C-alpha cells in the first residue's frame, strides 16, 4: 500500500479523452483498496491546442492531508510514474512560451518509472531521453500511438493496456486486482479486461542506470522579479520578419514534413497553406521549412500536388532541426539516398497513397 501520483503526458486534443479516462480509472480503482484520490487536469493546458504537450494527473492518497497537499497544485510533486502516450514526447515538451523544452521525465524520482507507448526499442528512446543522476525504470508498452480527435474516441485498447502496464510498474499504488474490479464494472468489460491483462503482460521493463541517456541540457527557467519586469503588461513581440524566440513549436509534432526538392515544382501551395508560416523562400525559388517553427500538422503534405514530394516522417528519425534544403543543395545524390532511405525504413505518411509504412 502506498500513495503517489501518476502523470499522463499526451498530445493536446488528440489524446485528451484517452488521458482523462486513464487518470479517472486509476483513482476509481484505488478506491477498491480504501484509498482516496482526485485528478488534476493541468490548468495552463486549457483550452488544449492540437498536439501541444499536455498533462493530466491521478493523485492517490491514504489520508486527507496527503490528498490536500497535492490537490492544491497544478502539477503534483509525488510522481511515481510518468506515462508518455506518444513516444515522440521522449524528445521533451514545450507547452508554453518562456519555459523552454522540458525533459519527458522531469519530476521523476529515484526508482520511478517512465512508461512509453512505442514501436521503438529502448536504445532508440534513450537516444533522446536525457540521463539522470540516479537509477530509474524505462518501460515500453509495444504499440502504435493512439490518436483521436476531441469529439471522437477510439476504443482501441490503448487505454486499458496502459492501465495494465501501470499496475505492473507501481502495484503498491494501484494493483491489477483493483483495476480488474473497476474495469470489470464498465461496458464491454470482457474485451477491456483482456486488454488490461495484455498490457500488464506485454510491458517491457528495464532499469536505466544513473548517467545513461542523452546529454541533459535542461536548465529550469529563471523568471524575473516584479521590479525587473516591464511595467504595464508588455512583452517583446517577434521582430519584423523574424520568429518568436520565446516559443518554438516543434515539440508539438509527432511527424515532420520532409521534401524531395528534386521533384518540387515550386508551386508555392505549401507556403500558402502552412498555418504557421514555416516556409522560407530560398534564392533558388524553393520553399524551405524552418523546422523549429513547424508543428507537424501535415497540411503541407496534404496540399502538395506532387506525389511523394512532401512526406511526413516519424519525428524520432531525427536528432535535430537541421536545414535539409542546404543538404540537398550541397549534395543532391546523397540527399536522394537519404530521402529514399526514409521512404523505405521510416514510418512515413505520404499524400500519394495515404499509405503508412512501418519499418
Amino acid at each position: 500500500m502506498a500513495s503517489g501520483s501518476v502523470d499522463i503526458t499526451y498530445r493536446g486534443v488528440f489524446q485528451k479523452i484517452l488521458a482523462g479516462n486513464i487518470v479517472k480509472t486509476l483513482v476509481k480503482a484505488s478506491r477498491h483498496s480504501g484509498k482516496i484520490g482526485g485528478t488534476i487536469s493541468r490548468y495552463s493546458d486549457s483550452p488544449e491546442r492540437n498536439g501541444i504537450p499536455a498533462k493530466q494527473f491521478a493523485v492517490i492518497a491514504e489520508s486527507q492531508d496527503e490528498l490536500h497537499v497535492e490537490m492544491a497544485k497544478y502539477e503534483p510533486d509525488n510522481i511515481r510514474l510518468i506515462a508518455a502516450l506518444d513516444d515522440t514526447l521522449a524528445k521533451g515538451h514545450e507547452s508554453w512560451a518562456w519555459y523552454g523544452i522540458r525533459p519527458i521525465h522531469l519530476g521523476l524520482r529515484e526508482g520511478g518509472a517512465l512508461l512509453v507507448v512505442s514501436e521503438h526499442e529502448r536504445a532508440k528512446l534513450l537516444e533522446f531521453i536525457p540521463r539522470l543522476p540516479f537509477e530509474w525504470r524505462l518501460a515500453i508498452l509495444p504499440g502504435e500511438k493512439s490518436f483521436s480527435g476531441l469529439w471522437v474516441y477510439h476504443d482501441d485498447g490503448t487505454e486499458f493496456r496502459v492501465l495494465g502496464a501501470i499496475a505492473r510498474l507501481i502495484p503498491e499504488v494501484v494493483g491489477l486486482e483493483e483495476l480488474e474490479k473497476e474495469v470489470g464494472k464498465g461496458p464491454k468489460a470482457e474485451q477491456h479486461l483482456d486488454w488490461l491483462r495484455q498490457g500488464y503482460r506485454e510491458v517491457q521493463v528495464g532499469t536505466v542506470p544513473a548517467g545513461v541517456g542523452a546529454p541533459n541540457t535542461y536548465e529550469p527557467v529563471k523568471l524575473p522579479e516584479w521590479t525587473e519586469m516591464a511595467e504595464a503588461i508588455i512583452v517583446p513581440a517577434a521582430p519584423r520578419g523574424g520568429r518568436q524566440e520565446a516559443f518554438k513549436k516543434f515539440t508539438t509534432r509527432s511527424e515532420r514534413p520532409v521534401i524531395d526538392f528534386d521533384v518540387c515544382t515550386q508551386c508555392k501551395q505549401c507556403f500558402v497553406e502552412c498555418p504557421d508560416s514555416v516556409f522560407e523562400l530560398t534564392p533558388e525559388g524553393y520553399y524551405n521549412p524552418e523546422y523549429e517553427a513547424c508543428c507537424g500538422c501535415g497540411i503541407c503534405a496534404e496540399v502538395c500536388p506532387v506525389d511523394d514530394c512532401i512526406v511526413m516522417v516519424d519525428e524520432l528519425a531525427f536528432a535535430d532541426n537541421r536545414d535539409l534544403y542546404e543538404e540537398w543543395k550541397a549534395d543532391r545524390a546523397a540527399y536522394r539516398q537519404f530521402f529514399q532511405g526514409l521512404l523505405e525504413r521510416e514510418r512515413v505518411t505520404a499524400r500519394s497513397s495515404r499509405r503508412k509504412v512501418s519499418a
Partner: protein
Amino acid sequence: MAMTEVSRRFAQHEELITGTEAVAQALRLADVDVMAGYPIRPYDSVMSSVAKMIANGQMDADFIVAESEHSQFEIVKHASATGARVFVGSSGVGWMYAMEAIVVTAALRLPVVALVGNRALDDPGAFGVEHNDALMVRDSGWLLYWVAEGQEALDATLLAYRVAEDARVSLPCALSMDGAFLTHSQHLVLVPEKDLVEAFLPPYDLKKRRFHPDNPISIAPQYNEDWVMETRKQSDAAMRRARGVIAEAYAELKRLTGRGDPDPFVETYRVEDADYVLIGMGTVAMPIKVAVDQLREEGKRVGFLRIKWFRPFPDEELRRLLHGRKGVGVVDRDYSYGSTRHGGAVYNEVRSALYDLEDRPPVIGFIAGLGGREVSVDDVFQIEAKLEQAAAGDLGAESAHWIGVRGPVE
C-alpha cells in the same frame, strides 16, 4: 467537510467529478428550468456538463446560449421573474461585462443562482483564480458563498436555491469556485438521489411577485428620490433575515445528507484552543489545513477558519471565535489597491468585525495566490511565522504582507 456519515433514509452514490460537474449534478437534482450560458474559462465547464445531461435525457431544462454575458444574465433575470428556477454564471471579466444586469437582479430581489468560476480580472489575459471578480458585487445585495471542495460544490448549490428562493430572503446568490483547483480537478463526491432534494428544496414560488398575465404587475418602474431609500432598506432587511434562513436551511441539509460543519457560516479547523488563527476563503483551505496539522505536531497552537458566506458576513461567528487570540492572519486571494493597510477585502472586513471586541486580537493581512499562484504548505508556514512576529510587534503590522511574489515585499 466530513463526507463519511450518510443519512440512512436517502441513498447517495460516490462519483469522481470536477467541482463544476458537481454543480451540474445539483442543477439536475434541483430540476432547474432555465439555464443561460456564455463560455468563459473556468466557469464554462458547467455549461458542457449541463448540456450533456440534457442531451442524454437526464435533465429537462431550457438551455439558452446567449450572445454575451450581459444578455445571459438578463435572460435568467427575466425567466426568474416569471417563476422559473434559473442558473447562470461567468468568470473574471465576463462577470464584469454582465455587471449592469447583475446589479439589477439583486435590486429586483430575484433569486437567481450563479456560479463564479473565480478568475483573475484582465489584463493580463490570465485565468488563474483571484477573488476580485465575485467580490465586485459585495455591496450590491447578492448572497456570496465560497466553496472549497467538490462535495461542497454540490451541497452549496442546493443550499443556495433554498436560501435565495425563501420568501424572507428573495435575493440572488453567487457561488464562488476557484479556477483550476475546483473547476478542473476531480474530487470524490457523494451524489444524492432526487428524493433527498425534493425533501430539502420546496418549489420556487414568487406568489404575488410572479410576472404573468394572470397576475398583472409592472416590474422596475422609474422611481424618484421619495422612493429609492425605502427599497434599499427592504433589501437591507432581507439580507439581515438571510442569516436565520441560512442557519435553518443548513441544519436541514446536514440532517438529510449526514454531513456538514458545526457552523453554517464558517468552517473551523482546530480553532478551539488555538493561539493563532488563519483565515481564508476557497481552496486555500487545503494547504492551510495540512500546515496546521504539521504545526500542531511541532506543538504550535494554530487553527484555521474558513469563511463560507461572505455575504451575509459572519460577524458574530468571528467575534465569538476570535476574541482573545494572540493573532489572526487573513489570507486574501484578492487585492484592494490603496485600501486600509493595503490589505485585501477579506482582511478589512475581518478587522472591522473585530473592532468592538474588548480583547481583540492583532489582525495581520496576507496577500497570496494571486492569478492562481499555488499557495504551498511552505507558504503557510511562512505566513504563520510572520503572523507570530507581527502579533508580537516584531514585524510591521501596518501593511499587508505579500507571500510568494518574486521580488522585494516589505
